[in-house]
């Protein structure tokens, strides 16, 4: 236990100090994007990983958060930073009816329904030009010219998401989530109201996703519906990032995000537009040979080693 605390303290210290040593803004940008994806992954993991409701439409919440910030500037001329306050509740407010409707469906049908909803948001935001400025998107002037302030803001959001997932999963809620994932009928038979607990997973998930969306608007300073509501580049990519790192593991999304960014940035220079090719190949390989992702397989390996040392009786918690 003591070792874990030291490790955490060291991790926090490195996260705080490390970017100061990076002189190239591009490198700082990569760190920020890793945090963005890791946080999105954390949010998705709560619903998709722990509660087992694989959403293929999280871009809806991301886009709603981003547009909450962008439209404040566009229509009212209010600083987009207020969007960080507005975005998460807006995303959560939309998540409630979406959840109530979609949680009637299970497994692949739930996945398809969320996929369709995400696409509907993209199409509406593209076509409702009077309100959203359509495909031209929204351009703002970024607040800071340096990357570091953004890094620390995003780091705080990431830490928030991490603490939130940890606290929720280690509480009674976490057990309810897993029981719904493993066997919904059995969970309901034991008196767990499945839909309500799925909502308890969805609403915080949408909240964090909306928050990251609002941050993205402030940081990147340009959004359009095809970027923030993208099925392939947001909804599906979140899932792949979590998958790669390890579904239903605390650090999985962060590891997956690091791998995703490292691969796609490394190959962007060489292949240009097709930088996703190596990532796609890796996704296939991971699913076929490491179905529980990097952290999941690591945990399994660790358990096996520990088991060998202590005999099979001692199951580490």
């Amino acid at each position, binding site marked *: 236990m003591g070792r874990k605390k030291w490790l955490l303290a060291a991790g926090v210290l490195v996260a705080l100090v490390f970017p100061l040593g990076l002189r190239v803004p591009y490198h700082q940008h990569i760190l920020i994007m890793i945090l963005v994806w890791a946080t999105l992954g954390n949010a998705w993991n709560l619903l998709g990983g722990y509660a087992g409701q694989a959403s293929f439409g999280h871009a809806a919440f991301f886009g709603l958060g981003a547009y909450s910030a962008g439209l404040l500037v566009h229509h009212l001329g209010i600083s987009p930073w207020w969007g960080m306050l507005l975005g998460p509740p807006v995303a959560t407010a939309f998540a409630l009816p979406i959840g109530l409707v979609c949680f009637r469906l299970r497994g692949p049908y739930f996945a398809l329904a969320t996929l369709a*909803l995400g696409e509907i948001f993209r199409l509406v935001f593209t076509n409702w030009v009077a309100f959203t400025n359509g495909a031209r998107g929204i351009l703002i002037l970024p607040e800071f010219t340096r990357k570091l302030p953004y890094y620390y803001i995003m780091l705080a959001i990431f830490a928030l998401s991490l603490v939130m997932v940890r606290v929720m999963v280690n509480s009674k809620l976490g057990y309810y989530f897993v029981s719904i994932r493993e066997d919904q009928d059995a969970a309901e038979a034991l008196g767990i109201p499945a839909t309500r607990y799925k909502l308890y997973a969805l609403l915080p998930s949408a909240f964090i996703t909306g928050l990251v969306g609002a941050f993205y608007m402030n940081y990147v300073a340009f959004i359009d519906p095809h970027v923030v509501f993208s099925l392939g580049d947001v909804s599906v990519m979140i899932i792949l990032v979590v*998958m790669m790192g390890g579904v239903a593991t605390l650090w999985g999304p962060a590891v997956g995000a690091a791998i995703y960014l490292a691969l796609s940035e490394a190959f962007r220079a060489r292949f240009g*537009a097709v930088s996703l*090719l190596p*990532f*796609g190949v890796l996704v296939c390989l991971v699913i076929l040979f490491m*179905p529980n992702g990097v952290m999941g397989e690591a945990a399994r390996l660790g358990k096996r080693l520990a088991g060998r040392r202590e005999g099979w009786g001692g199951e580490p918690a």
Partner: protein
Amino acid sequence: MVLLGQAVVSGILLGGMYALIAMGMTLVMGVMKIINLAHGALVMVGMYATYICFQQWGIDPYLGMFVAMPLLFLLGCLIQRFMINRLLHVESILPENQVLLTVGVMLVLTELVRLVFRSDYRSVATAYSGKTFFLGGVSVNVPMAVGFLIAMGFTYALHLFLTRTDLGRSIRATAQDREAALYMGVNAPRVTVITFGLGAALAAAGGSLLLPLFYLWPDIGHLFTAKSFIITILGGMGSMPGALLGGLALGVAESLGATYISMGYKDVVGLVIFLLVLLFLPGGLKSLLARR
């Protein structure tokens, strides 16, 4: 009135070709019970194969499809044999693993095509591309009419194959009950491989028929994945008549949406239908047909 007729006719013609693509998907979903998000990418690869035939050797798309179909059949068999069938024996937390594997396949196919052809828009200009004829005051685009007729021909051939041949019956048996089919001596793993190949070949056929009508670029696959999903759910998973009706219905709905609402909201119409069917008619049109 002419406008309405025009919208309905072109909707039906386009819908017939969508239906052919969707039959490939519904076949795969019915037999393997898997969601194949790579289906549109297979359509796209088939379209590029036909496109190459046209561009390199001047083969007409309606003949080029007979090159694309066997190619895609092979590709489909390989994907099923070496990836999806393997996954049946891999344990994981999420049952959605196979969906994600097809996402991976989709990414790889799309990016490979982008590597070779770039993201440029391409099109096939044949002698009959812009030709139209009139049918009682309604103008009909020649490639649309020809494509529709060929699609209906394939549909009928598929129907005969599934109902009259041994292999076709094995496929339907596996779709109904995999275990029972195994007990009856059906080689289910082989059937799944052939089914996926067949699904991919149908995707290629539909794509080739649409090639004279659509611009071609690597990301066009998403469009067809979405459409075939809508049709599959609308028609009922695994149902051929359902897919045909669903395809025609989607074609008409989109065409009416584009005419009377707006071009941009046309796709929303399809997606809303999709959600409503998913929620209120989970068995799709198939269950309505069965109730009769």
